[in-house]
Each structure stands twice: as structure tokens, then as C-alpha cells.
């Protein structure tokens, strides 16, 4: 196997926070905290995690919409973590984003044709009106829309159609990596599957590499070759999809999976709220293992020593002192329904 297309090493992104209006920024919010992974060519890596765990921030770093605070991002061997805006320009066509909200990802004042034409002309990739028109028609067809959609305004389209335009725009530059940040979570369940299949088909046809982000394990399963789980800015598990869904190593992954009855489509749209207790603030992350405050199998060591992401064989990595493919008795006990403590998800 050749070198990975993307290699992320010790990536960090912190945001300064003010504790009060009167003080200057004193603390840091660690949205992404020391994350490392690689994505092979043609592979889809799915990233899951609860709201606020840093998925979007990670996506924005990889797509270089924001500058990482620390760490390295190698794209096809080239370091892009610290490129300036100008140096980034030629890189941009290699990495394109698909956004979450199809309402706000298209300029409401622009017709679909204009949106795509601009994508083609910003970098001077396709010039000449006739050639652009031909490419626009081709792009629309690629995402399953007829060329007449070029004359429509975003508000005249359904959510699924808008997301298709978002995908067409991302494809316009013939990127090698697509970073899809929750591309279906704003869509109706019936439409979700169509868009997921479209992404999958396009990936196969065009040999794309994909970083696919979702809070929905069911959606991730549908498209991913490997799955990464994030918790509070950290990557806590990374494993081939089959092995992961079969028997995850990290208690957090198990809790996530247990909370999602996968075959039930109605439950899939819901945000993951796996375990009781709220996620601690990323401004004051717990010492030791970040998950220990909510972990059913936490021991004393967990509050003292942070477990590193270690290799457990067969490409499976987990950051847990007690990583094991088997749920402990205490976890299964907790998973039983407890009506008095049942927490309503959002």
C-alpha cells in the first residue's frame, strides 16, 4: 500500500476564552487536542462523537479553513498545517468540503449555475463560457440532477437537492480529498440514504478519499472503511469499520453503540446522547482519562494517568487502560433500562 494521502500528527486547535468580561483571555478551550491519524488513498474514514467533541474543528483544520494551533498535516507528503493564505490557494483544489446545513451552504442570491461557474473560475480551472457550461451540466448530472437546475435559486430546491449542489461544487475542482462534515444530518431520513449512496458512488467512480464526519453511528457505518471516535477533543478509538461495529475496544464506543438501535431509522436522526452525565467542558477537561467521569469501568488509575492511543492489533487502536472487546458486567448492568434515571436526548 502506498503512503497515506493525509497524515495528521499531534494536531491541536485551541481557542482563547475569556472567563469574565473584565479579563483578557486567560484560558484555552482545547477543541482538538493532540489528534493523530492517517487516511489512505481511496479510503473513507468516518469520525463520530457527541456534539462539541471537536469534529467540525478537526474538519476545518484538515481543510485548512482555519489554522491549527500545533501539529502537522501532511497532504500527499506536503506539510499544509502552516501554509499562508496565499500558499494555500493552489492546494485548495485538492481538498474540498461538503457542509452540514444545505440552507446556509449555498449563497441564497446566486443561481446554481453561477455557484458552480464560480467554483470553476475562481482558480481559473475551466475558462470560457461554453466549456464552463458543459462542465456545469456534467457536474449536475454527476450528482443526479438535470442540467436545467442551473437556472434555479437555492430556495427553489429541496434540502436533498441543495446538498447535491453542495457536492457538485465540491467536485468542481476535481479534489482528491472530500471532507464531509455532517453532510446528511440536516436532511430527512428518507433523503439521507440517497445522499449517502451518492457520496459512496462518487467516491468509487472518482477514486476519492473521504473524511466523513457524523454524530450518527448508523450513517457512518454506511460509508466508512474505518471509524474514529472522538471524545472531548481526543481520538479515543480508531478501527476498521467491521471490527469496530462488531466489538469496539473503548467503553465510550460501546456506550455510543448501545445507545443507537441501528436498524431503527427513526432513532438514527437523533443526536447521540449515550450515557448519563453531560460531557465535561473542553475548557476544564478532567485530569487523566477524559472519559473517566462518565465511564462505567473507571478505576483509580483513570483519574490520574491519561491512556495513550495504543495498538491492539489488526489495525485497532484505543485509548483506554482497560481496552477490551468485551463489555464488563458493570457496563451491561448500566445498559439495562432505568426509568427513574432515563435522560431525554435532545
Amino acid at each position: 500500500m502506498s503512503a497515506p494521502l493525509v497524515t495528521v500528527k499531534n494536531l491541536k486547535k485551541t481557542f482563547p476564552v475569556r472567563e469574565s468580561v473584565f479579563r483578557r483571555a486567560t484560558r484555552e478551550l482545547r477543541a482538538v487536542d493532540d489528534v493523530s491519524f492517517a487516511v489512505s488513498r481511496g479510503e473513507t474514514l468516518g469520525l463520530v462523537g457527541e456534539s462539541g467533541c471537536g469534529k467540525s474543528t478537526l474538519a476545518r483544520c484538515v481543510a485548512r479553513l482555519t489554522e491549527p494551533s500545533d501539529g502537522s498535516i501532511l497532504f500527499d507528503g506536503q506539510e499544509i498545517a502552516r501554509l499562508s493564505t496565499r500558499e494555500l490557494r493552489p492546494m485548495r483544489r485538492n481538498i474540498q468540503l461538503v457542509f452540514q446545513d444545505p440552507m446556509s451552504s449555498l449563497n441564497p442570491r446566486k443561481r446554481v449555475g453561477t455557484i458552480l461557474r464560480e467554483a470553476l473560475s475562481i482558480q481559473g480551472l475551466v475558462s470560457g463560457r461554453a466549456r464552463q457550461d458543459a462542465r456545469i451540466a456534467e457536474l449536475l448530472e454527476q450528482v443526479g440532477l438535470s442540467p436545467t437546475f442551473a437556472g434555479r435559486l437555492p430556495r427553489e430546491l429541496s434540502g436533498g437537492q441543495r446538498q447535491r449542489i453542495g457536492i457538485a461544487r465540491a467536485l468542481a475542482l476535481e479534489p482528491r480529498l472530500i471532507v464531509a462534515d455532517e453532510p446528511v444530518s440536516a436532511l430527512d431520513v428518507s433523503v439521507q440514504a440517497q445522499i449517502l449512496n451518492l457520496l459512496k458512488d462518487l467516491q468509487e467512480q472518482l477514486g476519492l478519499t473521504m473524511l466523513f464526519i457524523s454524530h450518527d453511528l448508523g450513517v457512518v457505518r454506511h460509508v466508512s472503511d474505518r471509524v474514529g471516535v472522538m471524545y472531548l477533543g481526543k481520538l479515543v478509538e480508531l478501527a476498521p469499520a467491521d471490527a469496530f461495529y462488531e466489538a469496539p475496544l473503548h467503553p465510550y464506543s460501546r456506550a455510543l453503540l448501545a445507545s443507537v438501535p441501528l436498524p431503527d431509522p427513526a432513532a438514527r436522526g437523533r443526536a447521540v446522547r449515550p450515557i448519563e452525565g453531560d460531557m465535561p467542558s473542553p475548557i476544564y477537561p478532567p485530569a487523566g482519562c477524559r472519559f473517566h467521569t462518565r465511564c462505567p469501568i473507571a478505576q483509580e488509575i483513570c483519574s490520574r494517568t491519561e491512556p495513550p492511543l495504543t495498538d491492539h492489533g489488526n489495525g485497532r487502536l484505543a485509548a483506554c487502560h482497560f481496552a477490551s472487546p468485551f463489555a464488563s458486567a458493570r457496563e451491561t448492568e448500566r445498559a439495562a433500562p432505568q426509568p427513574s434515571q432515563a435522560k431525554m436526548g435532545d
Partner: protein
Amino acid sequence: MSAVVQTRRRGNAGLLRFLIRRSPLGLALVTLFFLSAVFGPHFAPHSMTDTNLAMALQGPSAEHWLGTDPLGRDVFSRLLGASRVAGQAFLIVVLIGGIAGTALGLFAGGRGGLIDLVVSRVVEILQGFPTILVAIVIVALLNPSLTNAMVAVGLAAIPDFARVSRSVAIQLRDREFIQAARGLGAGEMRILWSEVLPNMAGPLVVIASFDGAQAVLWEASLSFLGLGVQPPDPSFGSMLREAQNYLAIQPSLAIIVGLAVSGFILGMNLLGDALGDYFEQAR
């Protein structure tokens, strides 16, 4: 791409139909005003400035539809001339305030940070200036004329446009389509110009209609005070000033000008409200 052209035409017709339904009076008054501002002077039945004391202060007749003024000039013709002047005032103010204000607000809101801080303070200072004093200073430094008086009013309109465009820019700054443009490699200036600015058209048109109406009122006031249009040229302000000495003898002189100005302001406000509604629902 004939589909593109077709849908666009439907879009403008949609706006017109909406305005006809929502505010027929506003649309009619404003259309009348701008038609007379553009074409009126060509069709004026009499000279606007030639005096004829023998014909002074006559009532309406077939010859002089709205009568004559104290110097025997045809009031209807002068009213057409005054509407041209008011139209110019409208244009100067909207151009100065609109271009400078929108650019400042767009830049401040779009870039944020220190730029925003500095621009916002400058705009606040500008807002603190009393228009009438600025007008007096400018006219004193240069000379009384429509353009000079309206430059002062245009400066005063900058903060309105800046405030609106800044707030829209801030709302849009983190929208995903802006990030998408950035991700495609668009520069920040291109993003402001081509992604953010088109989304301000609605609020800016609304502000332009209100500030333009204000400009017409200011033109009348400044010309009334002798700071704007100079006699013998007609303008709403100078006509009112000439009429005030004859209020007892020929009150219709003042009433006609007053009605013309009020009608226009009313029309512009109605139209501005309707435009606001249109852009609100088109979102």
C-alpha cells in the same frame, strides 16, 4: 443557458407585482415623482425663470394650470423643475451615503477585529455631526449650491448605510457558503464583493429609500434657508421661501409645494416599507 435569463426576468416581474399589490399608492407617487424629475423639465409648458410681473399671483387657469407666482412665473413648470432638483438631491445623497457607507460597513463587518473597531468609531463620530452645521460649513467654505448642500447630507447618510451593511456582513461572516468560497480559494476581497454584498441588496434598498426621502426634505430645508439652490432656479425650498410672504394673498403657492413634498415623502416611505416586506419574505 436560456433558463437562467428566463428565471431572472420572472424575479423582477415578481417584485413589481408585489409592490403593486402591497403599496399601489406608494408606487404611483414615487413613479410620478421620478417621471417628472427625469422628463418634467422637457415638457414644462412655460419657462421656469422668465418673469412677467403683469401675470403675477394668478389663480389656476387653462394657461397656467397651477397659477403663477409673485414674479408671474408658471408654478406648474417650476414644480417640474423643482422635482428634477429634488431627484438630483436624492441621487447625490444615495450615491455618497450608499457607496461610502456600504463600503465601510461591508469592510468593517466582513473583516472584523481592529478594522471593525476603527471603522465603527469613525462612523459614530460621523453620526454625531449635526447635518445642518456641516452643510453651513461646507457652503461657507465653497459656495451655496445644490451639490454642496447635498454633499453634507450625503455625509450624514453614511452611518445609516454603514450600520446596515455592517450588521448584514457580521451575520453572514460565518455562514457556510462563505467558508465554501474560502475553501475554493476565493480571496477575502472577492468574498466581500461577490458573496456578501449581493445579500445586502434588500436592506440597502430599504435604507436608500428612506435616506433618499430624507434627502429631498433636507434639500427643501437647506434651499429654504438659502444654503442650497439659488434663485431664480426653482426648488421646493426656494419656492416655499418665495411663497411665504404671500401666504395671506395666495396660500395655494405654499400649499402646492407642501403637498408635492409630502406626497413624495409619503410615497417613498410606503414604498420603503413594501420593499422591506418583499426582501423579508424573499429570504
